[in-house]
């Protein structure tokens, strides 16, 4: 039984972390986060353009397709800092859509789509459905071949940033096997996309009704790679969710510690009371563990076997750490914590969102048990 893990940090990761720390802090102060909560688009297009100019959308895209030629390990510090500042926007959606094309797309799809995604055209994935199962192989949506076209039916849920996305990569059943297709959003009628009301108000998430929709057969990704692509997207999503959660955990702890250092009751700073001090330390220790697992997962992500183990451990620890820290953040702010104005709710809602996407801690531990025991 291997109890030791591998961890490392490249110069590129360090450089990106450095830039992301400052950029995300400057571009996403919390008053701006709050303004965007009620904004229909949900993010600042000017900041999105800057992100594209920084080249971040192409970090994990090969140079031949207009990217930087690094990997998801280098995307991790960027997403971590976005999470730290509750930054909104279709960055993760687009990065994951590019991964779908990169791993599972045909040569012409790669040539057509990846350069655009690398330079700032948003895209997203549509993998979830109403059955709410985390198993990406469980697909009820269908595609039927009809000449040169595919007739689609069913509904995808939690299609993040669908309103901003130029392309949506959806999973369907074709001839009773899972398949992935690229849908050009301009071909989707307005009524087929409905915004969902979700717990994390920094998100924009949509349902996509496929009934009556038709796409050309050339929209199919390489059918020989569907299983591999779905498995990759599951782990890649979890890696980036873990990054976002680690950033959020660090931030909600800082936010709470600030309050514990300033709020006085019974003549003493409340942070001097061990009933508050000890649990916030536990939250901090949980965060440090989660961050170690995160960068271990980033480091080993491309290794067959080990990458999966490390990523599932990262999601499990990050879910537990973020949920605990944000839950205690509400409680430790007392009456203020129960108000909309206290930022603790922003983090708690986000923790619930992140945990619910692509498997919570218990789900990943069950997968780990099957891998390790």
């Amino acid at each position, binding site marked *: 039984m291997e109890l030791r893990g591998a961890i490392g940090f490249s110069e590129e990761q360090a450089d990106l972390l450095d830039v992301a720390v400052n950029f995300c802090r400057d571009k996403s102060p919390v008053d701006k986060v709050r303004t965007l909560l009620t904004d229909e688009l949900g993010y600042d297009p000017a900041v999105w353009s800057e992100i594209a100019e920084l080249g971040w959308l192409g970090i994990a895209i090969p140079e031949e397709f207009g990217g930087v030629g690094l990997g998801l390990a280098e995307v991790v510090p960027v997403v971590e800092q976005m999470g730290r500042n509750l930054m909104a926007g279709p960055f993760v959606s687009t990065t994951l859509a590019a991964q779908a094309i990169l791993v599972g797309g045909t040569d012409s799809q790669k040539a057509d789509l990846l350069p655009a995604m690398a330079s700032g055209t948003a895209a997203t994935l549509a993998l979830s459905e109403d059955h709410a199962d985390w198993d990406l192989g469980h697909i009820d949506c269908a595609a039927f071949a009809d000449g040169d076209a595919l007739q689609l039916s069913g509904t995808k849920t939690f299609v993040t940033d669908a309103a901003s996305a130029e392309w949506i990569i959806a999973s369907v059943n074709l001839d009773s096997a899972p398949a992935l297709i690229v849908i050009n959003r301009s071909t989707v009628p307005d009524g087929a996309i409905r915004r969902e009301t979700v717990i994390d108000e920094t998100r924009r998430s949509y349902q996509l009704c496929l009934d009556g929709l038709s796409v050309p057969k050339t929209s199919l990704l390489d059918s020989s790679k569907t299983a591999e692509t779905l498995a990759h997207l599951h782990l890649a999503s979890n890696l980036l969710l873990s990054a976002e959660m680690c950033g959020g955990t660090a931030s909600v702890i800082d936010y709470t510690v600030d309050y514990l250092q300033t709020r006085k009751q019974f003549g003493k700073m409340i*942070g001097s*009371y*061990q009933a508050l001090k*000890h649990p916030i*330390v536990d939250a901090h220790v949980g965060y*440090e*563990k989660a961050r*170690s*697992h995160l960068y271990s997962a980033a480091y080993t992500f491309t290794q067959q076997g080990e990458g999966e183990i490390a990523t599932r451990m990262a999601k499990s620890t990050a879910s537990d750490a973020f949920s605990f820290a944000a839950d205690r953040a509400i409680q430790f702010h007392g009456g203020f914590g129960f108000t909309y104005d206290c930022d603790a709710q922003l983090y708690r809602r986000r923790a619930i969102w992140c945990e619910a996407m692509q498997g919570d801690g218990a789900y990943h531990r069950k997968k780990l*048990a099957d891998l390790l025991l």
Partner: protein
Amino acid sequence: MANASEQELKDYREEAAAWFKENTPAEPDFMMPLTFMEVGTDQQFNFLRDWQNKVWEAGYLGAAWPKQYGGGGLEQVFQNIATDEMRKANGPIMLNAIGINWAGPLILDMGSDEEKERYIKRILSAEDIWCQGFSEPENGSDLGNAQLKAVREGDEWVLNGSKIWTTQGNYAKYMILLARTNPDAENKYKGLSFFLSPMDVPGIETVPIRKLTGEYGFTQTFFTDARIPADCLMGEEGQGWLIAMRTLEYERGARAGQAGGYIITMPDAAEIFDLAKDAKRGGAPAIDDPLIRDELVKFLIEARSMDLCHKRSRIGPLSQDKPMSLPLMSKLVSSEFYRELNQFALSIQGTKAAYYVGEPDAHDDGVWQRGYLNAFSATIGGGTSQIQRNIIGEHVLGLPKS
């Protein structure tokens, strides 16, 4: 950092591996202590002293300590390799834990040349066992309030008071001792001084403490007009707190410089899987129970957390936000981990959780039961887990003092 070539390190590793394979003793017919705090019989003591001496003579303990004081004079990386190979061979612990891990590094760090000359080599060889006199019966976690009195009379210090939880106190030749030299100092910390005190003088008496397991390993140490030479004072009068804090950094592994080897045998997680396969739940192996599987995976994740946090603490950009965070949390995390792991091992045994060492039908000879009870030595000793949380809260997160 390392100047040694890859080839040199590789050769060294091969030599060390071969040596430990050849020399690691077979399990004796008496129960071996799993940690340095469990040395309760002369038989155990002599066995472990011989082993440490042998490892040192072979050059695999103190490899990175200065040659002139009995060390190997090599880079730290060599000692790390030797320790690694020692672990792989699953050999016994190093006996003289306080000497090699905290008194020794402290003396090398802050001691005079004469002190280094006098003490270091005999620490490595285990000729001189060292113990620590910090905790007192009335002052456990509140170390700064230590009351053992040291009064200067001519060329001597006269000691009166008592220390408790002295690991290997009955075997020790020397003690690192925190004593109050000035009861009228402007605050409690400034009245403390630090001594490298002999134990074999009249007026120092050690009384073994019987632990919750029924075994021994610690003493209470009584000082009654005990006279020690004036030059036993380390540093200056009034620097006791400062030196004690430095000592605790060595103890907690927050500062490097230890002689190497290990002083605690970690329960091998593989053993708990074997237990989960052996133990039955509803007629089926416990390892098939989904709840137990979830817990086992949590322990695996946690074991890896400790390793990864240790490794991440050496990666500058990933640990600079709060530099003391990872080092200061390691004692809390590892001690609680082993307590919980042992506790969990009991919970999967069904009614057999109630057996104990000595019962032939107990799982693994009762090692989990005994291990669980002994695990509290680490969650209480060296600053309880509750004190650790205060330290992290105050020194890492910047919260006000409790």
